């Protein structure tokens, strides 16, 4: 399987994230032990496993909020062992992050929450308006742009958080248990939104311990157990068992609709 992203090196141009024998000790406990994998540009990956198995640590290592105790993490060609503190903001501008608890600014409107992400990285005023309008339309909340977060449902708040994560057009979207606080129907809507974002070429990595989501998820699933990568498989969920997705009905150039695995075409 020459084209299997699981067996590629970090120098392959398709690789966007690479973990190399990563060990992480955190507060005197081993959070990750000898974890190695690579993720392709434009891939959609699900991290799963019980709480404390190391899913969040993987995401934090990708944002370089943590650094490996041993081994190396390479993200968009930036190497963890050679990363200067001053460069970290530049890396973060290429990564969107979504949390279980949304983390919106409660005293600001939906619009301002999203615009904030652009403001602090110095996007010109005129572009901010254009970009915020684009992402809020994408998540279906442009008409609620003047609401405050507490005036929205949980699913809507998570969509605002996703819009905020996407407004700087990141290459990677990380979502840490994005459906953890949501009912199953809303959760599926969020997963569906992540698929649509992935269809736009963004690499999406999300973590969940919800078996229902994993069961119906027709993509690459990495299972973590006790800080180790226990399995890393491309699941082929039969069409009839898979939850329907909006993206099933969208045309993707050069591909059959609903093909679960896309070749690395977004180099």
């Amino acid at each position, binding site marked *: 399987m020459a084209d299997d992203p699981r067996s590629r090196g970090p120098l392959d141009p398709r690789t966007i994230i690479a973990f190399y024998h990563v060990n992480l000790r955190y507060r005197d406990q081993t959070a990750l032990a000898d974890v190695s994998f690579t993720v392709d540009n434009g891939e959609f990956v699900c991290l799963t496993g019980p709480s404390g198995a190391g899913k969040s640590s993987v995401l934090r290592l990708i944002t370089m909020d943590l650094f490996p105790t041993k081994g190396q993490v390479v993200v968009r060609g930036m190497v963890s062992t050679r990363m200067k503190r001053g460069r970290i903001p530049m890396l973060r501008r290429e990564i969107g*992050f979504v949390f279980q608890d949304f*983390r919106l600014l409660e005293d600001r409107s939906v619009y301002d929450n999203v615009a904030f992400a652009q*403001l602090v*990285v110095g996007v010109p005023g005129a572009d901010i308006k254009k970009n915020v309008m684009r992402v809020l339309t994408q998540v279906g909340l442009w008409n609620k742009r003047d609401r405050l977060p507490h005036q929205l449902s949980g699913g809507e708040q998570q969509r605002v958080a996703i819009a905020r994560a996407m407004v700087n057009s990141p290459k990677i979207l990380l979502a840490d248990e994005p459906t953890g606080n949501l009912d199953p129907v809303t959760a599926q809507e969020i997963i569906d939104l992540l698929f649509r974002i992935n269809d736009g070429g963004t690499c999406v990595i999300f973590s969940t311990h919800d078996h229902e989501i994993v069961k119906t998820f027709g993509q690459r699933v990495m299972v973590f157990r006790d800080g180790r990568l226990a399995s890393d498989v491309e699941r082929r969920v039969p069409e009839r068992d898979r939850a329907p997705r909006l993206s099933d009905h969208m045309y993707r150039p050069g591909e059959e609709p609903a093909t679960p695995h896309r070749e690395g075409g977004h180099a």
Partner: protein
Amino acid sequence: MLRRTQLGYLARESVAGFRRRKLTTGVTILIMSASLLVLALFVLVTLNLGMTLERTRENVDVRVFLVGGLDAERLAGLQPPFLAIPGVREARFIGQDQALAEMRAMLGEDADVLEVLDENPLPASYHLELSRGHRSPEAVAAIASELRRWPEVDDVVYSQAWVGALESWARIFRWSSLVVSLIVFGAAVFVISNTVRLTMASSRRVIEIQMLVGATNGFIRTPFLVEGILHGLLAGGLAMGLLAAGHRVLSVRLDGLAFFTPVQVGGFVAFAVVLGLLGSLAAVSQYLRLRRVV
């Protein structure tokens, strides 16, 4: 480069702490200006003592009283040897009659008491004026003990005992100012860093999101540093204002009480601003170092 939208944001955020926590801000500024006031007071007293000392030194006046029974020629002949002593700039002879006349003038209406005297009891004397480099207590004492060995000299009197006392006071105040400024330094940095820490804690979510979306540390830091600077500016201004008011009240009674020059006032406020900056810098760097995003 910062964009206009960013500058607007930074300006709003810089005063956010003032808006959100008026009481804490007020107390911080009061504590800081009180400590600065104490410091300024010490510096001002040192300054005034120094000036008094300088004035006293200008008037260093050594009186050499001569033994009785010297004839006019011997008396006049003493002037060259006096002037030959290193540091003596001028030697003025005051004869017995002149001394009595001065005494009479000094006594004014009570000069009658002198009428009971059969003869003039006042000795003739020389007033020596010393040049600038020889006015220290040690130098004057050395000259005096040298003169006391002369057979023509009965006694030497000088105002240096005074100068010595003044000088030791000035020394005490100079050192206390230093100690007080160190204490004030610590106290001001401490209260400001605590206040800024409070602002940062209440802006936790905002900081977290800024870090998450890739704002630079410099950008995240700026509003909090500006807050510290504003604290210093206000506290320094308040302390100077109070001190100026106090000086105005006091100088009605005490003549020649000196106040800081405008440059010194500016320097003092700048010192307060630096304290504010250091306090907030301490809070910010500690906070950002410990802060994790995810």
